[in-house]
């Protein structure tokens, strides 16, 4: 049984405790959460939770069914295996020694990200992208010295014309 990453998009009723029902389900049943994002949708009483999880096909099937079983869960969409887009944002505080500044700026340009804070000894870079893009820039910045990093976790949407 091969373990694979799966992206689940979950529409839930925007009620107190919903997130702990979901995270409790994952914790209690020993499922992995690689990343979790939650925010309101255009309907204020509905939130979208995006979870990236890893597991065998059988486990993923269980996760989806168990999520469905939660009373406050309206819909569970498995995006993996369909056409979808996925983004994560990271804020990266990188050491910016004078001799490295030009190189960093060049990278920011190539990766089409932004510098949103400049300090005496650092830049904070804002970058949005998929997993590959984020890991590419991180590996390039690493030798220069990454001081701190904050990531949002993945959000994702289906590319199907139909609204789910």
């Amino acid at each position: 049984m091969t373990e694979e990453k799966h992206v689940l998009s979950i529409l839930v009723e925007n009620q107190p405790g919903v997130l702990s029902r979901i995270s409790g389900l994952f914790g209690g049943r020993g499922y992995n959460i690689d990343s979790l994002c939650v925010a309101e949708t255009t309907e204020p009483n509905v939130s979208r939770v995006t979870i990236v999880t890893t597991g065998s096909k059988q486990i993923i099937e269980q996760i989806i069914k168990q999520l469905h079983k939660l009373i406050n869960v309206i819909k569970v969409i498995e995006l993996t295996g369909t056409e979808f887009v996925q983004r994560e944002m990271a804020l990266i505080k990188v050491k910016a020694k004078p001799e490295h500044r030009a190189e960093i700026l060049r990278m920011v340009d190539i990766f089409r990200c932004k510098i949103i804070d400049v300090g005496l000894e650092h830049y904070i870079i804002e970058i949005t992208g998929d997993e590959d893009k984020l890991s590419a820039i991180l590996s390039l910045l690493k030798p220069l010295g990454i001081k701190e990093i904050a990531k949002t976790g993945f959000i994702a949407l289906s590319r199907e014309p139909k609204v789910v």
Partner: protein
Amino acid sequence: MKLTGAQILMEMLKEEGVKTIFGFPGGAVIDIYDELAKTDIHHVLVRHEQGAVHAADGYARASGGVGVVLVTSGPGATNTVTGIASAYMDSIPIVIFTGQVPTQLIGNDAFQEVDIVGITRPCTKHNYLVKDTNDLARIVKEAFYIAQSGRPGPVLVDIPKNVAATRIDYKPPKKIQLRSYNPTYKPNMRQLSKAVSLIKDAKKPVIFAGGGVVLAKASKELTEFARKIKTPLTGSLMGLGAFPGTDPLWLGMIGMHGTYRANMSTGACDLLIGIGVRFDDRVTGKTDEFASQAKIIHIDIDPTSIQKNIPVTVPIVGDCKATLELLNKLLDKEDLGDLNEKRKQWLDQIEEWKSTNPLAYVQKDIIKPQFVVEKLYELTKGKAIITTEVGQNQMWAAQYYHFDKPNHFITSGGLGVMGFGLPAAIGAQLACPKKLVVDIAGDGSIQMNIQEMATAAQCGLPVKVVILNNGYLGMVRQWQELFYEKRYSQTCMEYAPDFVKLAEAYGAVGLRATKPEEVEKVLKKGLSIPKAVIMDFVVEKEECVYPMVPAGAPITKMLLV
């Protein structure tokens, strides 16, 4: 109409047709108890909140309805958790009302504050904290609906004291609208026709029925189905009574302490039809070798039960009753051929398994626990409602008492909680006042909720407790004997109360049998007394339950007597 939260709760309970509540008062629910006293709802004052939930569980199972519990905040609420977890594992519809500290104090570590919604989240079907009296009626209505629909289960409603006390303009709630909860009752017809063709092709089919059949009240449909396709049945612990236990097609229970023929048949069958089951590890043993020759049809209302432990050929999500009704109709249109001829070899094989290793024991000069259960079965003609504690007593009850009807065997299956049987018997007796209700108990378990004898006495309930007194935490001792070279670490209870005197202290009758020839006499006498009775049977200390499948072994590899 201006009503307080407590009054609204009473309105809702009346609307739901609640006649009996199991509970225990405290500061946070005084307002509710004050209103309760003005209604004609029968409140059963238990002696421990765990007992209230088990009693509500027994009440729900015996009546086929819903059980209701009312307790206070903090310790009252935490005391219910074991009962809730048991009801959750066994899918029993119960609504639990807990008091809570006033909303403005929540989160302050107030006196008797506990986050019971957080604590019970993983062991309830759903739960609510009511923050506004205006939401109370709707939430109560939803709670009753969720508890009883789909795959049933316990639902907890946490009511802060000020929510119960606040007076609002009350409007009865409208129809329930739960956008995100919609259980599937009707099965998919394509799946059904696949099932029909597997059934037609099968040479060696077995039906495996579980608690879902009992919960869906589908015994009649199951019986018709099994007879129509002339297929033998086994059942899980929770499925006992779903099909007549005295019918020739009945194989007995499956699993760790299942009958030889049930386990062998499952190992050899070419089609296994699981109905209202969840393929728990006590049933399957080693999953890779479970029914390894068979295609599997699995019918259950809960999609998460399907493909969870066992890969199945034809999954069918649906209510057991609705599904079996449709299957029966479809099968009526099919030509199944001469089933007597077709099944002969298979049924002959099963008959052979039956005669090679039947359930057996030898009654010599010390009372055998099996003998007590068998005698109880004879004397009650199999008509009693049996509740059990947990351990060997539970397994002997399952093996030696035969249930012809559903809702007559009430046991903590999934959680296996000692202390279940007595309060469950109290609940069952309240649901069925005319029936004989017997708790088959162990000497260890009975001490875990013995305080409920006072509840039985107060309510004048003639429940009978049959203690199979082996002086041991027998089931654990059995494991130690078989797998830990008889190192009986902490399983011998060197001290036990005198159960006869204990019964008397509770205003009940106590009887004891120490010799085989006294068993029948004591049972006859005990069963005929219209009061609560404890019968203490001093049985063989080191008797084991057989067959036994060691944990994790295939169920066809049984240890036999």
